[in-house]
């Protein structure tokens, strides 16, 4: 869609995205069509062409037809997806996003609304407040859109009566108040007749407020949040050595705050830290500082191992929350409901973690705010739930920093829900994690990187964790594997838990139930050996999932292969491989295990 403009009008003008939402048939497209026609933003001849078209097909002309860019929309007469149209006022350039009002297309409405900085919510004066008037209001507040103007449309159909307008205003204001939304204004209009769209209407002398056009110009442009604490989800760590570039660049888009060369940054959830050495950019002069809104890259003083999914934070600023248990508010868009006992993917910033629904506290019907007690969350429901993650995530609470509290849930390849984190619940690994943070923070880094060690030793340092019931051949297997790998020239070491028990654990050996602490210390020893580049084999009796969580929390490395040995599986541990050992053929089990390590790329195949 082309616009009519002059040089001085456009120079340095800002652009704002505005979404128009509301119940189906309340007249969103008509209002946009009218806005475009009245501001002379339509291509020449378009209006005449559409009018002629209507005449030919003997149907009355509607301004909404101007927007019908897609064939099937014309056929069904409803907006199915958010379409963008471009339009200007003297003040700024606008992108108007026309969001569909039909419940079936709520996910499209959300996609459209999420791009917007402000919203126009349309209510039909004749039909009054409908289900989606409320639901869309709720969604706008969940999405974090705070500037909302309510347009009461089709005033011509109710004889331009002030009383009808005021009744809708009172009723809808009350609804919005319950979800903490304060609208900027209520405007009585007729899209069809052009009342109060671009010019004040003579038909409603009782109305003293803005026209729609004035209202949009009155919305304020939201600046990136540079005053908030620094937050940057790591999108990638780039090293393009193949192209002759030795820089190791941490890349991402800054959500909030600012960053300077020399600043100390900490990466969560690992807790690793370093200082910003340079800020990197292509085809730009060097910079000392970058801020929210910019997609940036920086190098570090030390070569620490960080990866995509971590959250970069500045030392001395608000520490993000870290947990596997989250209390959230969410909305569900999926075709199948959100249920317990099913694995989903949780995406927050750049991290993606397997997730399960632990509990539904309450389900809210967004169209009337009634609260229901349900065991699952259905399509178009809004709910408060507790989610449990397979791995720890770093995030903020919605009340502190909204951008890093927002997540989506993927079900069967599709984004099926979104929400904000209200509360971080302490999980069972917190006591271990707290120690790990301090350790990582104080960790003296070798000048030899894990990659260099892996290349030299021709192996990736990994923990091979062998567990199972007593007397099933765990130790025999571990020792045989150690011998086989050693003979292959690998740097490998077998560590029985007893070796740790009487030395490292001497101080707690005789104190009651210390299994968790034993496991934590074993994991710390393992962490050092893994950092040295070794393939470490550990055996322990009857490890459970909680034990494995402690090990995973402690290790800086993710490479753990868990093997359950023996016929009977007696704990809840999620193992990678199940082996039953025949004493005559321990070599067979070793071969199977070795193959597994080759598959995982821990050691390499000789061909």
């Amino acid at each position, binding site marked *: 869609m082309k616009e009519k403009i002059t040089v001085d009008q456009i120079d340095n003008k800002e*652009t704002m995205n505005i979404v128009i939402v509301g119940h189906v048939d309340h007249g969103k497209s008509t209002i946009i069509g009218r806005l475009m026609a009245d501001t002379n933003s339509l291509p020449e001849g378009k209006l005449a062409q559409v009018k002629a078209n209507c005449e030919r097909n003997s149907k009355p002309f509607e301004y909404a037809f101007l927007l019908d860019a897609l064939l099937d929309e014309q056929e069904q007469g409803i907006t199915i997806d958010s*379409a963008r149209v471009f339009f200007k006022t003297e003040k700024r350039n606008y992108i108007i996003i026309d969001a569909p009002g039909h419940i079936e297309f709520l*996910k499209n409405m*959300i996609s459209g609304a999420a791009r917007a900085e402000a919203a126009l919510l349309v209510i039909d004066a004749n039909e009054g407040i409908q289900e989606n008037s409320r639901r869309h209001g709720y969604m706008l507040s969940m999405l974090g859109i705070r500037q909302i103007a309510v347009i009461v449309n089709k005033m011509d159909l109710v004889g331009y009566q002030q009383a009808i307008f005021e009744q809708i205003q009172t009723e809808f204001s009350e609804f919005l108040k319950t979800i903490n939304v304060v609208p900027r204004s209520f405007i009585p209009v007729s899209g069809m007749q052009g009342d109060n769209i671009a010019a004040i209407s003579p038909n409603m002398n009782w109305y003293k407020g803005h026209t729609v056009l004035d209202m949009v110009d009155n919305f304020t442009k939201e600046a990136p949040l540079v005053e908030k604490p620094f937050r940057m989800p790591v999108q990638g760590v780039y090293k*393009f050595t193949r192209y002759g570039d030795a820089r190791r660049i941490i890349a991402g*888009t800054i959500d909030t705050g600012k960053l300077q060369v020399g600043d100390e940054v900490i990466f969560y959830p690992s807790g690793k830290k370093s200082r910003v050495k340079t800020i990197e950019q*292509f085809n730009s002069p060097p910079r000392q500082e970058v801020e929210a809104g910019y997609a940036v890259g920086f190098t570090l003083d030390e070569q620490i191992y960080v990866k995509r999914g971590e959250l970069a934070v500045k030392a001395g600023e608000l520490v993000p929350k870290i947990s596997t248990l989250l209390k959230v508010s969410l909305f569900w868009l999926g075709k199948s409901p959100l249920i317990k006992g099913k694995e989903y*993917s949780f995406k927050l910033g750049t991290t993606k973690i397997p997730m399960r629904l632990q509990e539904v506290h309450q389900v809210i019907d967004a169209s009337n705010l009634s609260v229901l007690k349900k065991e699952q969350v259905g399509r178009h429901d809004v709910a408060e739930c507790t989610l449990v993650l397979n791995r720890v995530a770093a995030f903020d609470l919605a009340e502190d920093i909204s*951008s890093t509290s927002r997540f989506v849930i993927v079900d069967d*390849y599709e984004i099926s829900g979104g929400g904000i984190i209200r509360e971080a619940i302490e999980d069972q690994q917190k006591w271990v994690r707290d120690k790990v943070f301090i350790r990582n923070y104080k960790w003296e880094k070798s000048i030899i990187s894990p990659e260099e060690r892996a290349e030299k030793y021709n192996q990736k340092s990994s923990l091979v964790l062998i567990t199972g019931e007593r007397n099933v051949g765990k130790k025999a297997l571990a020792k045989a594997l150690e011998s086989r790998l050693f003979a292959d020239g690998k740097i490998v070491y077998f560590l029985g838990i007893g070796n740790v028990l009487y030395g490292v654990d001497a101080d707690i050996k005789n104190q009651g139930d210390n299994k968790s602490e034993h496991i934590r210390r074993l994991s710390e020893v393992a962490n050092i050996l893994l950092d040295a580049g070794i393939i470490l084999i550990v055996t322990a009796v009857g490890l459970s999932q909680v034990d494995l969580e402690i090990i995973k929390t402690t290790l800086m490395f993710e490479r753990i292969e868990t093997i359950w040995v023996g016929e009977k599986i007696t704990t809840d541990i999620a193992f990678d491989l199940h082996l039953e050992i025949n004493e005559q053929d321990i070599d067979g089990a070793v071969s199977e295990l070795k193959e597994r390590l080759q598959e995982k790329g821990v050691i390499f195949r000789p061909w």
Partner: protein
Amino acid sequence: MDHLDELENISIHILREAYANFKNLGMLWSIGKDSTVLLWLARKAFFGHVPFPLVHIDTAYKIPEMIEYRDRLTRQWKLNMVVGQNIDALSLKQTFPDGAVDRITCCGLLKTEALKNTLSAEWPRVRYNHDKQCYERDFNSEAFTGIILGVRADEEGSRSKERYFSPRDKQNEWEVADQPPEFWSQYKTDFAPGTHLRIHPLLDWTELNIWEYIKRENIPTVSLYYDQGEGKRYRSLGCYPCTTPIESSAKNVDEIIVELKTGKLAHIAERSGRAQDKDGGGGLEALRRKGYM
């Protein structure tokens, strides 16, 4: 942060998300202004490098200067350049206007079919060998699962409804009515085997934004966009039988920006010089549902 900065940073974010999530990622480079801006943004996103192949569908009817320009930048910027073509349709002369088919069929064969089969690696493709300085048969037979395109929402109606990450099913078709939700910088990056995603980092850019950015960054463009003294220039580039220049005396980037800002072209569609959009009932949208870019 001005509007161009805003657009640039969102596009870079999208490019990096695409790079992180797709093992077999490629970028379609049509040699036109939009996809060249896209290529430039990739160099920005990856600090001077383009860590995935660029794919060009050569219809053999492209204006020769476009091909020279493509190969010059490929060498200069060390690009991993892959080229695909519908060899059968060309040898059977199923082309317009010198063959027995109409414009839409020609587009379908030389572009859509060639694109599908180049992306899926079902047809042979060639890759530029920087050592030998020539194209040679590409023996990598893996299909692309993510393809980055320079589509803009303001070009025409159907493109205004695209997502940044837009899935295509096994038949390469686009389900306009059932697209994935997209919010909070979270995109559809999970996909079923056999399907692929199209990624559109330039969706929010306008024609004017593109030229303003070309000026700001000093991006090299093909000279066909500028009037060479005949009072004509191309506004949108395609195959020579189906692309006509517009009346314009804009000789450089600045003059194009002025032309766009003063509204000289305000009432002429950007793709008005592209004849295939006008043929048949559905035009570009019908083409796009079947997999056209």
